[in-house]
């Protein structure tokens, strides 16, 4: 197995991680049991940072120890187990890609094409994402920094446009007395962060940047969400708490000069981010499939994958039951825990065991 083909710059990788996660957090945090005030939103964002780093610790340690060949090393002694793990990760990434695409589907149903047909556009979206994923991680890596720049420009423009409406008295809300609920929300947000799992498959040009980048990126995500939540709450007040997509609500009140509504800017950003998220996961899925030894280098293999994904998404578009199942399953956070924390922990244990065995052998010699 040659790890070189999946090389990606750490900055590009963490840009992908940032883009892939930020909208999930901006739209998710409320667990639906109560309105989310700025104070609670910020507490959740701040709880999210250490919890995510903690949950990703096994991956970081494994990567530090073995580079990106943590799973592959198992293959030296148990090739079938390694293959099963690679296939498992491929399925996990494909699943996450489908959830990412559903994010766009959900948003388009809310803000872009109300009660109008858009399944074919979605299918085109998936197909483009898959084609770019099959070209290798370079496509996603190159697209990430400009999209990240676009995100920060949009956030800056929105802040400038809404700051005149900012009222500090909207912020003076006491935190939720139910600490357990806040912690549960923070943990739930952390348990949706599936992106670190991709660290097992991407090698980086500079290995040093790859480990320290995760805590930094997670802190940047938590900080950005916290800042934006403060802005949303300060501007929209109690009204914002009644809205499902609070960040979208912020864009609907933003006006800059003669430009009355900025929600189109968000729509564009949302499409870019959802696209990149889908590409990121599909690329990771392709990487793990290649490592599992699936014949994806050949044209036939690519076509089979393309047809399979098309078939799945056609089902997704047409079958309401599957969509409902996916929406329900998206709330099941155990899968992320398994692939981000549990499996890497097991691999790490196996690595330590192997090391100890090696030491014992050398001592015996």
């Amino acid at each position, binding site marked *: 197995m040659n790890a070189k083909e999946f090389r990606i710059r750490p900055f590009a990788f963490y840009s992908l991680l940032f883009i892939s996660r930020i909208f999930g957090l901006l739209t998710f945090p409320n667990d639906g049991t109560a309105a989310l005030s700025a104070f609670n939103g910020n507490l959740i964002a701040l709880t999210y940072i250490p919890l995510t780093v903690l949950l990703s610790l096994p991956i970081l340690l494994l990567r530090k120890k073995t580079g990106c060949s943590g799973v592959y090393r198992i293959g030296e002694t148990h090739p079938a187990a390694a293959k099963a793990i690679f296939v498992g990760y491929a399925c996990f990434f494909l699943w996450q890609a489908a959830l990412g695409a559903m994010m766009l589907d959900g948003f388009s149903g809310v803000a872009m*094409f109300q009660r*109008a047909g858009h399944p074919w556009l979605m299918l085109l979206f998936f197909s483009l994402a898959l084609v770019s994923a099959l070209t290798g991680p370079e496509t996603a890596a190159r697209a990430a920094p400009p999209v990240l720049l676009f995100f920060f420009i949009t956030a800056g423009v929105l802040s400038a446009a809404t700051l005149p409406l900012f009222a500090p*008295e909207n912020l003076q809300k006491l935190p939720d007395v139910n600490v357990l609920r806040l912690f549960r929300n923070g943990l739930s947000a952390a348990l949706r962060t599936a992106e670190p799992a991709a660290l097992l498959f991407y090698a980086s040009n500079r290995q040093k940047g790859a480990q320290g980048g995760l805590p930094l990126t997670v802190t940047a995500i938590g900080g950005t969400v916290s800042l934006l939540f403060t802005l949303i709450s300060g501007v929209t007040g109690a009204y914002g708490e009644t809205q499902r997509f609070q960040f979208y609500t912020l864009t609907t009140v933003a006006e800059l000069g003669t430009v009355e509504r900025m929600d189109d800017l968000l729509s564009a950003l949302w499409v870019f981010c959802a696209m990149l998220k889908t590409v990121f996961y599909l690329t990771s899925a392709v990487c793990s499939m290649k490592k599992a030894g699936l014949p994806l280098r050949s044209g036939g293999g690519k076509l089979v994958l393309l047809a399979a994904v098309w078939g799945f998404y056609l089902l997704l578009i047409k079958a309401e039951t599957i969509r409902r199942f996916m929406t329900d399953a998206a709330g099941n956070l155990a899968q992320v825990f398994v692939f981000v924390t549990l499996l890497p922990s097991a691999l790490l244990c196996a690595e330590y065991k192997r090391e100890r065995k090696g030491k014992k052998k050398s001592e015996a010699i």
Partner: protein
Amino acid sequence: MISLTLLPVFFLVLFCGCGRNDLLPGMELSRRLLIEAIGLDADGNGVTLSLLTMNTKPAQSGSETAQNAQNSRFLQFTARTVGQAATLAEQTTGQVPFFAHTRLLVIGRTAAERGVSAYLDFFLRNRTVRSMLPVCVAAENAASILSYECASAGGTAQLLEKILSASHACGKCVLTPLFLFVGRLLSEDTEAFCPLLERTDKHEDPLSVNGTAIFRGERLQSVLTEEETTALLLLLNDLPETLITLDGQTPPVACRIREAKTRFQKAADGAPAFDCAMHIKAEITEADGARYPVDRQKKEQLAEALRQKLAETTASCFEKLYNGERADLCRLRRKLRADAVFGDESIRLRPRISVTLD
């Protein structure tokens, strides 16, 4: 090569979205009920939803141009809930209601007195409703406002929107977008307010803003007059350029306030009062200067008269709001952490106004 192949497919799919057939269920413009203004009136246990909709049907004949074709339609639906009434609108017209182009939401007086939360919830959950949608209360019922047939090209909704913004620009009307109205409605430390619209029998001026409707909780509580509305805007630090006529002057004198800054402070002596510093920059717009020259002494006298007038109107508005209605519209309790001031005793406003008159 792949991108070249995909490009025609992309445009094929993109443009097919505009069509309407079983394969690609797009939404044509004529299938949308483009709503320009919404009216809500209480009707027994239900609600009457009045809609001013854009006429999206093409002109029937060549002679019928867009100018003389009817620009908007007035529709009314009565049902138990707002959602049911909207569904009724869809069933009756065969078009799907679309609220993104709505310019105004008018709540009838009876509905406002009964409580607006139940009526507004539908609009809060509907993603097509704009957060910046201006909210008003009708002096009688919302239908009477929206049913006015406007001869001008823009139609009644546009006329109402212009009336509101022009009145606000003159300092005679507050502007309350939906998100601020609901935010205040739900907030525990303040009360909601919005402009009061009135339909009169006057031929030249059938629709006008006639003060400000003040809510207590979710119910309409009282109404501020036009003069009190100007004072409220000054207290809210939101007064635009406003013309003030000074009483008791011969000849009559009018001043335009160019800039007004208001800042509240808790009374330093611990009294149940707020010190309010107002810095006003104004200019004389009318004083019959040809016959009565406005010298420095006269200017000072006029500045004093303006200062007195503003002190009186703001104090009386404050008295009505804080002691009469117990409505903390300026959010002083939270801004200044002034819980102790809001006791049983009546709260006084101690305005300190500085006027610079040019």
